[in-house]
């Protein structure tokens, strides 16, 4: 039968009668190899350079104050918030894959969920740094949490920025729990295969005494289902709350009711684009081509195409309603967005987010790793620009022309943006080397060999 979607990606991908062993070997050898591949060292060197730049630029901001960034009147929210929203968005694909695709029985996710979840956590770490520094006194971020204190200071619970603390905090907690719990059986595999005492000890501690008894598996699967159900609303809530930062205001271009679902769709879009950007080189350099197959990349391309069109729908609705509203300020904000002095940013966004993914209509394109990788990069650029467009163009031309300004980022702005990628990639590369990169146990339940009597 030739219905494409019925084909298990592993039909024929893992040749021979030892498919289970192949999965274990394929994944474990990344950790067991005496040295990682040369590409890993090159990537690590590059990432560490960027990370150093991140440290230096943030250190400079702490020393000098946030005036080191290019903020001007009236654009008081520049790169740090753009980067924050960008990274939080990237952190959406992981939980979507592990929770929503799990509930929808999309078992192909098992090949990519582990590193997508890892990516989620690293992206949230990158995101959290920006507001922490942007508050101006980065040694006092704990003031944002409601801790009883002798100053009688209490956070402003009516501010959406305060809601962010809880939304992102909850999301990070549940994502880490979900990620870690899923890894326990795989840590046990690593432990059992480890040859040095240090590794046995470390992986043994991480495996928390996992023996793989049926009782343990039963509990594990119940817990997985419950965490998936709890994480599903979180996929929607985090970026909805981030969108409230803007949408609760009265600023044309920020205040619009479609923002919550629009931000969520954009986050999934950008998150999946980052997953393919990471998946394409990882499967190449760590020899995981038979685990993360072309079919996986193709399915992710389809998700990118679909979510890209959801984002396009939101852009269109914003434009239509701005006109339909009859409100002149609303209309000005959107004409200015497309044809004002930031028009180049708007059309970059449209090109990257709406037009570029359209190549995935063609099967030839969505099965070509170069095209997938390139479009993934473009979508990431586009999603960064989306946040730039929303934040900066809406602020730059205020209600009175006397309050108009043009935000030009400073060198420190660029350095912090590039540096945050250094942190992200460093964490990701360490993850690839030392942590089971693919959910081996989950995958074994999915491959055809796991279902002797599957239809």
């Amino acid at each position, binding site marked *: 039968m*030739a*219905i494409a979607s*019925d084909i298990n990606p592993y039909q024929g991908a893992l040749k021979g009668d030892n498919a289970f062993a192949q999965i274990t070997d394929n994944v474990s050898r990344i950790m067991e190899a005496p040295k990682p591949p040369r590409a890993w060292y090159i990537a690590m060197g590059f990432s560490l350079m960027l990370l150093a730049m991140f440290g230096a630029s943030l250190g400079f901001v702490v020393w000098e104050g946030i005036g080191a960034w290019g903020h001007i009147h009236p654009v008081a929210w520049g790169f740090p918030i753009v980067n924050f929203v960008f990274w939080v968005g990237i952190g959406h694909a992981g939980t979507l894959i592990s929770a929503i695709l799990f509930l929808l029985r999309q078992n192909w996710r098992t090949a990519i969920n582990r590193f997508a979840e890892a990516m989620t956590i690293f992206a949230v770490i990158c995101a959290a740094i920006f507001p922490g520094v942007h508050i101006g006194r980065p040694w006092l971020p704990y003031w944002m949490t409601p801790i009883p204190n002798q100053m009688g200071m209490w956070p402003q619970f009516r501010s959406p920025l305060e809601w962010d603390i809880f939304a992102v905090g909850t999301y990070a907690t549940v994502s880490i729990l979900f990620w870690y719990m899923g890894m326990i059986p795989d840590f046990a595999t690593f432990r059992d295969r480890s040859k040095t005492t240090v590794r046995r000890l470390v992986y043994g501690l991480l495996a928390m005494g996992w023996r793989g008894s049926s009782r343990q598996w039963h509990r594990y699967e119940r817990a997985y289902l419950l965490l998936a159900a709890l994480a599903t609303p979180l996929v929607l809530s985090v970026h909805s709350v981030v969108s409230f930062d803007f949408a609760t205001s*009265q600023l044309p271009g920020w205040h619009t*009711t479609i923002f919550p679902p629009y931000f969520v769709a954009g986050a999934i879009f950008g998150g999946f684009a980052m997953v393919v950007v990471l998946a394409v080189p990882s499967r190449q350099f760590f020899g995981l081509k038979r685990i993360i197959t072309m079919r996986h990349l193709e399915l992710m391309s389809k998700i990118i195409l679909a979510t890209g069109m959801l984002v396009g729908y939101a852009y269109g*609705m914003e434009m239509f309603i701005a006109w339909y*509203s*009859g409100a002149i300020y609303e209309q000005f904000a959107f004409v200015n967005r497309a044809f004002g002095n930031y028009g180049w940013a708007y059309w970059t966004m449209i090109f990257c987010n709406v037009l570029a993914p359209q190549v995935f209509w063609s099967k030839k394109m969505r099965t070509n790793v170069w095209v997938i990788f390139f479009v993934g990069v473009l979508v990431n650029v586009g999603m960064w620009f989306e946040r730039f467009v929303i934040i900066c163009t809406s602020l730059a031309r205020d209600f009175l022309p006397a309050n108009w300004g043009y935000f030009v980022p400073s060198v420190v702005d660029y350095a912090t943006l590039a540096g945050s990628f250094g942190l992200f990639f460093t964490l990701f590369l360490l993850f690839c080397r030392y942590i089971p990169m693919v959910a081996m146990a989950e995958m074994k339940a999915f491959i055809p060999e796991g279902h002797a009597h599957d*239809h």
Partner: protein
Amino acid sequence: MAQPKHKKDMVADSGHAGDYVDDSIRLGDEANGLFRIAAGIGVVGIVLAVVLGGGLTHQQFQHSYLTAFMWGLSIGAGALWWVTLQHLVGARWSVAVRRVGELLAHSLVLMALLSLPVVVPMLLGNDSLYRWVSHEYMASEHVLEGKAGYLNVSFFAVRCVIYFGFWALMARYFLKASVAQDKSGDTSLTARMGRASPLTMIGFALTLTFCAVDFLMSLDAIWFSTIFGVYYFSGCVLAVHSAMVLALIWLQRKGHLVRSVTVEHYHDLGKMMFAFTAFWTYIAFSQFMLIWYANIPEETHWYHMRLEGAWWPATLALAILHFPVPFFGLMSRQIKRNKTTLALGAVYLLVIHWYDMYWLVAPNLHKEPVFHAADFAAWVGVGGLIVAFVVWKARSVNLLPTKDPRLQRSLAFENV
């Protein structure tokens, strides 16, 4: 009532010799009874609504009828979305229940006709429903003048032709192609429907959004909300899953599909009902909270009408009855896997979805929430006509896409 004819039908399987479905897949005489009753109720309901509502062009009838119409439309539109989605993602679990969805989607042909009592009076210059039909009204506010390019009767009519033309066309296409496959067993039809689905989905998203803007949002010509199309869509998804559950339970009680449709299918439909009560709340809350928080007069007056006087408890009731009650009610696996409790949930959601439509429409007419007899007459009328129309069509087709290449997977699947 006569016993249903028990037809044995060999089902083409996907490569497993010996698998076949021994099930009744054609409606028998019981359908004629239901058709006659539903059609009778439908006609009497509509006539009563006209009489009680003070005539075709009277404000009360128009509002009662629009409420019922948008409620009925959400079932058909939701069904078209659902069928398109199954083809788009190549779903397997749903094949055994897909024909019911296709038949419900086919009700969009009827809905095209049923839109006439709203559209025709408007074309004749009646502004009892949409004030913007009157030129004086449009000239009364500066902000409305700019909208005349969109809010005018002839463009409204053109848009209606596009919406209903497109929906009727696609609903008929998916039903016809699927029925043709029952006869020919041609698997290329599955691929063809799959290829038609992405563009149908895009067309659906646009038409449904603008339909919601036109029929519901423009009741208040000044008010605007970018999320409004998604709000109506969330109700469509609730309505179609509830309607499918009820249709399947009725069919099984009459002895059809008893072996093909299992508790697993009900469980999945129930999960969607559960998930979309949360989704509706998410959208409704986003819209309300953002407008309330920003407190801009152009936007708040719409909620103001719904939060003042006796409308306040009515709005609070909607929030409670549309979220915590069905959310906690449908949470348990046992409830979704029990036909009686699931049917209860489905009826409840269809009722509360009607109340949601009422909450959108009625404040346009009444300063206080008044349940007029015409509201119920029109609701029962539209509901009756939809049931009659769907049953009438269902009599001539199989209730199961017997030769769909994925059918076997749907018959065998289990929720683990």
